[in-house]
């Protein structure tokens, strides 16, 4: 009886291993065929993530790794300062109230982005909000300026840098 059972087990194992080998050959064949086709260049692809990013607060300080060359008004207190960790990229954000007007800040950051060779891909000047969106190497930057008269200020500035 034991001999019969052992023979049965051996059969099953043989079938299983054969299946694995067949699948391996099939996958190899498919990849080989794809290699013979004319390759047409495609755009760089990003993998989407569905998990919430991890947020780190920095209180009264700028986020770690926030670019030091981005102008930030002296003597201000950060309304918000945080980083968001996404898969493959990191967002660094600061928000502060400014004594400059929306127009003045818009001009300031436009000049800064141009001087530092950011490619400004989007500009917006609306009745209440103005913004600049730029890219440089593997980074993006979003500068958003809105009117705000809280505590004697004239505008609110939000700057987010995306490092990929």
């Amino acid at each position, binding site marked *: 009886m034991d001999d019969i059972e052992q023979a049965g087990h051996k059969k*099953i*194992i043989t079938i*299983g291993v054969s*299946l*694995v080998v067949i*699948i*391996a050959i099939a*996958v190899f064949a498919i990849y080989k065929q794809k290699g013979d086709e*004319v390759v*047409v*260049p*495609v*755009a*760089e*692809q*990003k*993998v*989407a*993530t*569905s998990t919430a*990013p991890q947020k780190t607060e920095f209180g009264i300080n700028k986020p770690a790794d926030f670019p030091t060359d981005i102008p930030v008004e002296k003597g201000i207190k950060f*309304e*918000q300062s945080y980083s*968001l960790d*996404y*898969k493959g*990229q990191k*967002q660094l*954000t600061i*928000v502060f109230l400014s004594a400059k007007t929306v127009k003045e800040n818009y001009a300031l950051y436009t000049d800064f982005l141009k001087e530092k060779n950011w490619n400004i*891909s*989007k500009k*917006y000047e*609306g009745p*209440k*909000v103005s*913004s600049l*969106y730029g890219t440089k190497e593997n980074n*993006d930057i*979003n500068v*958003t300026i*809105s009117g705000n008269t809280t505590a004697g200020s004239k505008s*609110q500035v*939000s700057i*987010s840098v*995306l490092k990929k």
Partner: protein
Amino acid sequence: MKKIIRTIVVALVLLGGLPAVTFAGVQTFTDPALNGTVANTFTVLAGVTSVSVSMSGGGGACCGSFIVVKDGGNSSFGSLLTVNGGHGAKALQKGTAGGAGGTDGTSGVICGGAANCPGVGGNSLFGTGGDVLSGVNNVYWTNTSGTKFRGSPGQGYGSGGSGYLSSTGNVGFGGGGGAGAVDSQQLTVVPGTPYQITVGAGGKWDDNGAGAGAPGFVSVSYVDPGMVDVSSNISSSWTITGPETITGSGTSQSVASPPGTYTIIWNDVPEYTTPATQSFTLASGGTINFGGTYTAITCANGATNPTACDQCPATYSYNGTSCVACSNGGCSGTEPSLICNNGALNPPTCSQCPAGNAFLSPSCIPCVGGCSGSEPSLTCNNLALNPPYCSVCPGGQDLSTGVCAPTAPVSLIGNGACDAGEELILSECGAPKTKWWMF
């Protein structure tokens, strides 16, 4: 059995049978039959503002004439980008390139039927020109079997066909020129817009394909957009900045948008606190959600209008600084139509009564028997001294007659006259005094 199944699963995983998830769209337009111009439409997806285009025109063909040439067709992406086809060749002359990305074919020569008599086709970025040496035979006319051999067609996309020999075998025809081409050129496009795609055909002389230019192609690729979602607890409005600018209003919004970092600015709603600005990064094929919570502003003094804080809720009165409840039994209604519950005329104190009434805290009391005038000048109609009771007459008077009047003699009290047989003596009724000793 379980062990076997587990083994198979592990094997599949190790073989990498599960491809990585990608979120790029690609569409390629070409003519698989070598000849014929393919025209199509590429409609940009919502949320896509940039595409990467690779394309070439059709390659130039070799020829069968000393005069006529057969150029490859142009390829184009709307009016944004066009590349030219390679130029055809003719006897002894090469076909030139269609533009950057292509190369000229080589010229044919006069020779005795050697392999180098005809010219080779020009290359393109995506194809290799026809090579006479790899052709079946560079003899122009039929061989002993009756088969016609011609020059080699271009390989891949946009390359020129090779030349071949004249019927005499002495004159070599040039190779067709390679088409102009571009590789991964970024174009800014408008979401939802259809763009006409034209694919250049390879030049050709006949249906056998000898010396034909390779067909052109157009490949369009783009990064899939993600979704920007917005929700607000009350009807409001907002502006979202980023790779694209989005404005919206209401309580929700959902917009397909290109990947990047977005920032929302919530607009003010009267009598509500405005949510703080937020920033999130949108991945290709992903979703980000901006959620705004507006909170109603409350007045510290109890008023209901957070802007001025000077309008009080029902039954309360604004005294210049705060909302106060009515005294003396409260009020009903809302300012300016506040009414004292005790009938008084002056909320919130409610202590001044209408005419004919006296204020006896906490109420307005109508006079007994009526009064005229208003406090403090209230007067009992019965001439009594104490409104609203109107029950106390001035000294020597009483209300026996209904009004305050001098008090009648005791003996007159009743019907106001002496009984029969009596007479009024010193304000009293009594028996008449007829003898001196009765006084």
